[in-house]
């Protein structure tokens, strides 16, 4: 018998949470709103979702395979990207566009910058914007729930006509996963309870938009329940990799997102401001992280109490 044992650096026990576990929690939290989207928009929405999920995971798998890198699909981050991208697309999106979006998200936005943890913008969001500027006519086609009527108008275009109840429960046109504020909030609460996300970003984001809407004479509730604010604030802006790590940084980030969203919606000619606002704040995040907010314990000379 050899008397030698294995060595390892302390600590010798680890918390049960893993990267894959956190990612799976996010998928679970997104599931109700995604399923609801498939129910109200029908099979075409389901196909879009399946297309983005499968192509996202496959793109990551092939990238690692071809470049002989360790396989990373097990960390579930590609799955999250696929689900998020699908939920951010209109149910009328052609499948080939959805697939291009996933490939752009995984290959261009994530892997080319070094993979998980190194992407400087949220892959799903950036992919959505790539699609939006590349295929504007396809990307702005929306359909009414249940029926197959194609309309280009989202509730953002005619806010006055839609009731708060419709907006809250999501019986209106929009992207697959963004319509039901109710289910998105449930998912967000789940993530907060599981301590996966910190509520600072969603609250400051949504709060800023509501406040600015109220000041400018709009109905703040309608403003925050329409479009992609709930999905963006709860699930996209809180992406760990592309948001600040400190609480004060998160607050700056959330307020910044809210401000830019409002400005774009109110004064811009774009149909939606959430994606751009988060994208811009993603890019500013490294700067926010450089604000020295943290002093080590005992940094100042010790004083007797």
């Amino acid at each position, binding site marked *: 018998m050899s008397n030698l*044992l294995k060595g390892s650096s*302390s600590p010798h026990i680890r918390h049960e949470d893993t990267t894959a576990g956190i990612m799976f929690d996010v998928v679970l939290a997104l599931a109700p709103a995604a399923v609801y989207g498939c129910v109200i928009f029908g099979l075409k929405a389901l196909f879009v979702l399946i297309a983005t999920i499968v192509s996202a995971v496959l793109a990551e798998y092939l990238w690692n395979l071809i470049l002989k890198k360790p396989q990373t699909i097990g*960390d579930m981050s590609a799955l999250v990207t696929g689900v998020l991208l699908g939920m951010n697309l209109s149910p009328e999106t052609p499948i080939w566009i959805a697939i291009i979006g996933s490939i752009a998200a995984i290959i261009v936005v994530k892997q080319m910058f070094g993979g998980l943890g190194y992407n400087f913008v949220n892959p799903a969001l950036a992919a959505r914007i790539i699609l939006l500027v590349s295929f504007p006519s396809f990307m702005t086609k929306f359909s009414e729930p249940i029926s197959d009527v194609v309309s280009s108008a989202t509730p953002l275009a005619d806010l006055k006509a839609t009731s708060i109840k419709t907006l809250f429960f999501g019986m209106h046109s929009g992207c697959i996963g963004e319509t039901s504020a109710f289910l998105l909030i449930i998912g967000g609460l789940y993530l907060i309870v599981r301590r996966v996300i910190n509520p600072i970003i969603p609250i400051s984001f949504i709060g800023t938009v509501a406040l600015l809407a109220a000041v400018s004479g709009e109905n703040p509730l309608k403003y925050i329940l329409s479009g992609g604010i709930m999905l963006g604030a709860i699930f996209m802006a809180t992406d760990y990799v592309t948001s600040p790590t400190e609480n004060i940084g998160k607050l700056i980030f959330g307020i910044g997102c809210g401000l830019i969203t409002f400005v774009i919606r109110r004064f811009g000619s774009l149909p939606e401001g959430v994606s751009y606002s988060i994208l811009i704040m993603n890019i500013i995040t490294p700067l926010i992280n450089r604000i020295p907010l943290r*002093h*080590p314990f*005992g940094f100042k000379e010790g004083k007797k109490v």
Partner: protein
Amino acid sequence: MDKKEKALSPVRRIHGGAHLPHFKNTAEIETEIMPVNKTVYIPLSQHIGAPASPVVKKGDEVFVGTLIAEENGFISAPVHSSVSGTVKGIVDRALTSAATVKCIEIESDGKMTPDPELKPFKIETAKDISDAAKACGLVGLGGAGFPAHVKLLPSKNANIDTLIINAAECEPYITSDYRECIENVDGIIAATFLLKEKLQLEKVVICVENNKPKAIKKLMEVAANSRDADDTVKLMKLPSTYPQGAEKVIIYSATGRKVPLGKLPSDVGCIVMNVTSLAKLYDFITTGMPLTSKRITVDGTAVAEPKNLLVPIGTPINDILDYMNIDIDSVDRVIMGGPMMGQPVASLDAVVEKRTNALLVMKSDERTRSTTACIRCGRCQRTCPMNLTPARVETAYKNGNIQAYENLNVNYCIECGSCSYICPAKRPLTEVMRIAKATLRRQKK
């Protein structure tokens, strides 16, 4: 202290801290005395500072408590025989760190006869306390192994007013300090009052984590019976967030004082003593028996029947595993100390030292192996009790940016292990912090 009086709450609470599983499986199990009739190997260096110099030679008869090596300089500690028997010589032996250390090999006669010359130690002045600690061979039994007489020496400059008795025992699994509180409560309280009187302290705080209500109750009851006029011995209930027992943390909790970088507890007017150290010191003062045996918690995922064992210092780990009927083939790692800060044992030749308080025998745990990239969740920095940013240190380490270590204040790291523990990506953050500190130290030289 009134019986009705409640334990104090912490004066301040640290930022962060980890919520660990407690695994205190051995808490309610009476300490078992491990029978010894084999050979012990007593290391000459079981403390921080210079190794002791042997005063025995091959063939000498020794008893339990006989001085076998005396201290070598100011920061050093004497070593005593832990068994009665015959000195077989001085040998090199691989200990925890896999470095070889000189050990005195003593063959036990199995009788454990105490040295007939041992006699109680008279305490008259404050200096006698420090002398007693030195003669006892006492070192920080919480794990640090710093010679206790050094910090108990009343120097002119130090303005000590508070004694903190550390019974937090914040590491999972370990219950040896807890058992001390339960089994030797009278000794602990008597020692507390003795130190308070002789060292002329304004305040004594006995700190226990709130997951040990029985120990708190017992200590309060006994303290109430021996209360003195000015009523300055207090019990404090600490939250059970790791690392409450870390020296800087417990001082902050008990007094609200922060020990600056590179300073000692005495610089903020505090002495921190581990509860078992205190009890041992009192035992020495009353009986004259120096530090020759240690209560250690033997537990871990590969141990079916965890126990607290009282073992002579110098007992090889192999003998303990045999006694506990642990199948060595099922074992992945053996850790000396707690799971958060303990050291892995390189070989079963390692022996129980003065500062050993637990022996953890672990099966392989896949969770500690597979890592993913850092997802910047920020948990490490939220958990860090020293308010550092371990993930950023890791980035600097990967980039070879040594200058950044200093800017990120790695020297403040107490290596408590919380960052590695909490990391969902299972990155070896504590290990990197340790390397970063060592690199900075080397560079300064």
